[in-house]
């Protein structure tokens, strides 16, 4: 699959957006830890969709906007991107897949324009405060341990990042973590207003959760499903927080079926 990377200036800072495929536009929003550049999950999506995969402002090589203070700011940046980009401008069939932290951003986007998106897929999304458990605090664990916590099977981590993860990846994780602190330090990884605002979202939504997600408790998926008027929850076996890395085929199937359904 051929990926091209565009550099766009939004709200005064430059952002890298990877693009591939053809078909209806699909915005894929990444984790707080960013992403390795090539994943089978992305390639598979690009067979059916025009995939836009931005590196969040301040993550994975995109400029850090020093003014940015919260996750809703990021959501506004992506609403701006959808309004400006040739692949999405004026279209009614734009869908969003949000992975983890990207799921929180996607949910915020949906509350800002409750009927604008075609379909929404939230995978292990942060953003809602669990009532019983807790969202894992990366501030207390190393870069490696935090990402490993997101895998049900440690061999899957080794396949994606290497058993001895290169220092360059750790440095990138540190930069990403710093940006996460800048915009999501307190309250950590949720927005208390979000559950109240989700009730107005008209976009049909699929909530996907890895059965063994130790970063964001499954309970949060249940709360998303309850708060969103048109949502259902699918639990994927044999996956933790990084469903797209551990069970890419299952996730692709779910996304494809849900987004393309008439």
């Amino acid at each position, binding site marked *: 699959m051929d990926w091209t990377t565009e550099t766009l200036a939004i709200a005064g800072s430059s952002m890298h957006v990877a693009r591939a495929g053809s078909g209806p536009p699909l915005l894929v929003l990444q984790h707080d830890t960013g992403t390795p550049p090539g994943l089978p999950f992305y390639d598979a999506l690009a067979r059916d969709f025009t995939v836009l995969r931005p590196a969040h402002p301040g993550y994975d090589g995109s400029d850090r906007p020093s003014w940015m203070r919260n996750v809703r700011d990021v959501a506004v940046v992506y609403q701006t991107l959808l309004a400006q980009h040739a692949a999405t401008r004026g279209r009614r069939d734009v869908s969003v897949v949000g992975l983890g932290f990207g799921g929180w951003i996607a949910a915020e986007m949906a509350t800002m324009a409750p009927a604008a998106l075609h379909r929404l897929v939230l995978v292990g999304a942060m953003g809602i405060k669990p009532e019983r458990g807790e969202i894992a605090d990366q501030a207390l664990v190393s870069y490696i341990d935090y990402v490993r916590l997101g895998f049900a099977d440690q061999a899957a981590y080794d396949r994606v990042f290497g058993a001895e993860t290169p*220092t360059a990846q750790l440095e990138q994780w*540190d*930069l990403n973590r*710093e940006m996460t602190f*800048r915009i999501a330090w*307190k309250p950590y990884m949720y927005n208390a207003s979000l559950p109240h605002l989700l009730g107005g979202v008209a976009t049909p939504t699929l909530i996907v959760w890895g059965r063994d997600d130790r970063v964001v408790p499954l309970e949060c998926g249940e709360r998303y499903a309850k708060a969103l008027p048109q949502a259902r929850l699918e639990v994927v076996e044999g996956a933790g927080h990084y469903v797209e890395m551990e069970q890419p085929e299952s996730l692709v199937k779910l996304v494809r079926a849900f987004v393309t359904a008439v």
Partner: protein
Amino acid sequence: MHLMYFTEQPMSAYPEQAGRDFGATALMFSNKHFDPAAGSRLYNEYLEHYRLAESVGFDGIMLNEHHNAPFCMQAKCNVFASILAATTKRVKIVLLGNPLPLADNPVRLAEELSMIDMVSGGRLVSGFVRGGGQEQLATGVNPAYNRERFEEAHALIVKAWTQPGPFRWEGAHYQHRVVNPWAVPLQKPHPRVWIPGVLSKETIIWAAQQRYPYIALSTEIEATKKIWQLYDQVAAEQGYAGGPEYRGYLQRCHIAETEEKAQANARQFMWMQGEFTGLAHPVWSSPSGYFSPAMRKAFVEYAVGRRSNPRGAEFEDQLRNGQILAGTPKTVIPRIRKLLEETRPSIMGFWASDGFVSAQDTRTCIRLLGEEVLPAVREIGKELGLWSPFEANAPTSRAFPDPARPAGQMAVAGAGV
């Protein structure tokens, strides 16, 4: 010279094995191990040691604070500063210092410091620090804005000290409708500010830009020289000459009646591995956004165990390179001379004991420092021209060139009740 007494105020009375088993006592080691009866005894012993330090001739008492950690039981240096303001008569009360980024209300700090300055009769030196990495976590303050908060809180405090209120403050990190504290410092233009540090170039540069003395915290001698090189270079850019009155050094220095005893007790500086971070968990001591971007690779490798602490060295190395001095006055004084000759500080803190050193041995150490070491150091200081900011009448800062001194003689005469 300005010679200060310092202790970390270790909370050493807890089951040592529990600490070793847990492995990283700064931040997450449970406070169920904190014994308040021992705490009460230790706080009062430390107060007694401070008063002894004044009576044997120290010029200043240096205080600091840390959070969630047995290596330092002083959680708020302004509390001890307040006590000392009322219970000592002559010594400067040198706070090194209040961790500004941890404050959500810097105006309150400005008030507290003003009160301490007034109660003490103008003896406050108000240092400011960024706070350790784990301190940000202990207090829930965002490490990514640590330096921004430091600089903004400093600007707000200095304004509250020097400009009549009421005024409004709309900053990036602090917003105050009305700044108008009814407590202002006795010293004018404002109490002296000294900036301690150990590693970050940014802090050295910032201190030199403000024309504040920088206090190197137990750095290795060659590293200390590099600090002064950088400070002097920035000073020159600012249009003044750096020199002894801008240089401070905190020296770990344990004195005993015999070499053997001094060496044995000095090992206690390595208690909690002797560093500011205690038995630091590398992730907690270097949260993302806290350290210099230039050091990112080093800290990232340290955080995952691929490199040793960029801040640390072994006990024997530190004894050899002089970061720790231990001995009798006779053997230690020549080593202090070497330090003074090579790095030329005018402000010196003596971090006299640590860990499980007994109260009796600490008192002996303080007495020997006062009776034998300090007079010798003063003579060396005179010989080398190491005049302290007070002796040199150095400017308070770049923004306020007048030397700080108490307003009104009546206040001074009534001080130290």
